[in-house]
């Protein structure tokens, strides 16, 4: 037992003291935020401003109407063209227009305009012409309102005819579906990243011990199973440390923000929102569950990764082909997360959050929606119990493969051979 502690200590300290760990811990959240805001920024910058001429043969479109919509959205311009279609067709490009739309002569306001064509020499993606479409619809709407004699008052009455259906959880008044969705996504993705990154760290660590032949020296002092377990627990502690540092940072920023943001600054608003999120999703339940699923899920997957690491030799391609089925399980779980978040009480969400291989990710996506309202206690309990049973099994299974693999050099075994090792009488 004492020896396992020594191994855990070594695995933990050598990793935590590495520069890559410190940089990764600080840099990861920064990069993550950059990614989110950066892509949003780039997408915003990347929008093309359109300048489109309208050749109105029907006579419905007036300068006044066009000017009104242009005032609301200045990025994309509609301009009423007086010249003929043939003439404009030849010169629109040189005049700096993106294209032009022709309103047919026989247009009838009662029948409506089903579709118009944007004549252009460019190709546009699906969303690029949306603002243009919106503007044309708006003008068309105004024209019809005008013809029907609907004034601004009547228009406002009509505008209020939309019903916005909001869900309200009557058992738990604080429940906030939007916040839960976000936290669910973040938890699921974080779990996914930790399982994949630290799982492959276990695999590479085991392979390193095998190829540098230190394994033979160590297993003459400790049992192979102790060496494997020590490594898994040590690396699991590293993952947990990283997660706890992040959580601590969030609380720190939150509290600093609360202190400094007494006035109505944007900071105070942001803090208020975060506070609402925290109270609505029972942050301690979420963090507690996350730590459980992080460790249990990590043990479940990383012992399988350790078994693979023990079976391969120096060639990293061998690792890829052998670890593919395990990686697929994790990717499959993240694919199941999206339907689970959009409907956290559906049968697929319930069952995949109970089955051990997908439960760490799917259950963590569901938990923010509330325990025990969305996730009843029996589901959480069953899921946890099965995951514990699952990782006990995978660790036992991996230990049997590891014991043989770690001292076996030469040809890479197949999964079939590895399973044979595991169930062979030793």
């Amino acid at each position, binding site marked *: 037992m004492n020896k396992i502690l*020594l191994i855990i200590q070594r695995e933990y300290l050598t990793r935590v003291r590495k520069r890559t760990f410190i940089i990764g811990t600080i840099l990861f959240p920064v990069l993550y935020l950059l990614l989110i805001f950066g892509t949003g920024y780039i997408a915003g910058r990347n929008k093309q401003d359109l300048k489109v001429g309208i050749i109105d043969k029907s006579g419905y479109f007036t300068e006044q109407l066009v000017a009104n919509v242009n005032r609301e959205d200045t990025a994309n311009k509609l301009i009423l063209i007086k010249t003929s279609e043939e003439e404009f067709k030849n010169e629109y490009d040189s005049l700096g227009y993106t294209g032009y739309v022709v309103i047919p002569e026989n247009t009838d306001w009662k029948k409506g305009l089903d579709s118009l064509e944007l004549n252009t020499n460019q190709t546009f993606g699906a969303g690029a012409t949306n603002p243009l479409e919106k503007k044309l619809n708006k003008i068309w709407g105004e024209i019809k309102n005008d013809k029907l004699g609907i004034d601004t008052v009547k228009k406002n009455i009509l505008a209020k005819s939309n019903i916005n259906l909001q869900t309200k959880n009557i058992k738990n008044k604080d429940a906030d579906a939007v916040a839960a969705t976000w936290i669910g996504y973040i938890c699921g993705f974080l779990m996914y990243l930790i399982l994949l990154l630290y799982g492959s760290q276990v695999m590479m660590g085991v392979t390193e*011990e095998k190829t540098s032949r230190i394994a*033979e*020296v160590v297993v*003459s002092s400790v049992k192979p199973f102790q060496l494997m377990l020590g490594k898994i627990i040590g690396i699991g502690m590293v993952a947990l440390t990283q997660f706890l540092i992040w959580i601590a940072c969030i609380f720190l920023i939150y509290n600093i923000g609360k202190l400094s943001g007494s006035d109505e600054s944007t900071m105070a608003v942001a803090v208020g929102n975060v506070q609402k999120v925290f109270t609505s999703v029972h942050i301690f339940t979420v963090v507690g569950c996350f730590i459980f699923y992080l460790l249990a899920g990590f043990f479940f997957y990383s012992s399988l990764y350790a078994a693979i690491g023990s079976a391969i030799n120096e060639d990293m391609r061998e690792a890829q082909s052998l670890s593919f089925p395990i990686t697929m399980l994790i990717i499959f779980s993240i694919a199941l997360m999206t339907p689970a978040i959009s409907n956290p009480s559906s049968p697929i969400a319930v069952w995949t959050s109970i089955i051990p291989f997908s439960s760490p990710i799917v259950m963590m996506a569901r938990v923010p929606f509330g325990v025990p309202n969305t996730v009843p206690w029996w589901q959480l309990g069953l899921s946890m119990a099965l995951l514990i049973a699952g990782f006990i099994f995978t660790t036992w299974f991996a230990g049997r493969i590891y014991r043989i693999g770690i*001292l076996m050099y030469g040809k890479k075994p197949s999964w079939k051979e590895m399973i044979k090792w595991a169930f062979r009488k030793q």
Partner: protein
Amino acid sequence: MNILEVYNLKKYFATQKAVDDISLEIPKGCIFGLLGPNGAGKTTLIRMITGIFYPDAGEIILKGKKFDPENDAKYIGYMPEERGLYKKMKIGEQALYLAQLKGLTRSDAMYKIKDWFRRFEMESWWNKKVEDLSKGMGQKLQFVITVLHEPDLIILDEPFSGLDPVNSNLIKDEIYRLAKNGATIIFSTHRMEQVEEICDKIVLVNKGKKILDGSVHSVKQDFKENLFGIQLEKVPDIINSSSFEAIKTNKQELIVKIKEGHNPNDVLGYFIKEGINIVSFKEILPSMSDIFIRLVEGTPSARQFQEIDAK
């Protein structure tokens, strides 16, 4: 008293009988040579003695008690043929870690490491990494790590490979010193000249079976071919004796084989009677290398794969 006794040890792999019914006894304080061609089963045998493998059958008795891998690790120091250390770990920390895994306390381990590092002039290595060391330096470090916890049984697999003569001698002297202080050394090798020089007792294994067991002296006696070297002032052209025959002439030295039922006196008597002055006379014992080759010869140089059905 025997430090290690092994009875009817067997280990079968899927395609090979790696160790097939081997028994041996190693007295305390002895330098013991475990010999055999490549793939004879030496490493498998050692791995069972060090507790890395469980034997399929048989018994291992260490220090008079049944071998218990978990608790007896501290009595054994094992240096595998393929050296292994963490490349990225600092040398001092690494030695400390591996010594603690053997069951030493931290302070005890620290004291011993300092002592050994001083003796081997390795003090400046403490904060270096293994990847900074040359092969020979790595070898030295591996040896220190193996014997650091003062094990009663030290198992060295090809300890001199890759070492220059100076460091070779350094380690050889340490081996003698450790043996003198009561440690037992198992020495696995196929370098026969080292065996002759160092070992007291040997066992030769081939194809998983023990084919020879005894002290270096008695083995040589058993395999001697009654050859003698005789140096003469002038080697006669024709030798005609019923008691021996000349095998080969080498300048002034004559190699003779004494026939059954005769003894060296007959040879000396012959030359005295012929009036030839004798300069020297000595018995030629076979070298370990000759014995090794003679015993292993005729078996295929590489082990063949075979089907093993029973487990």
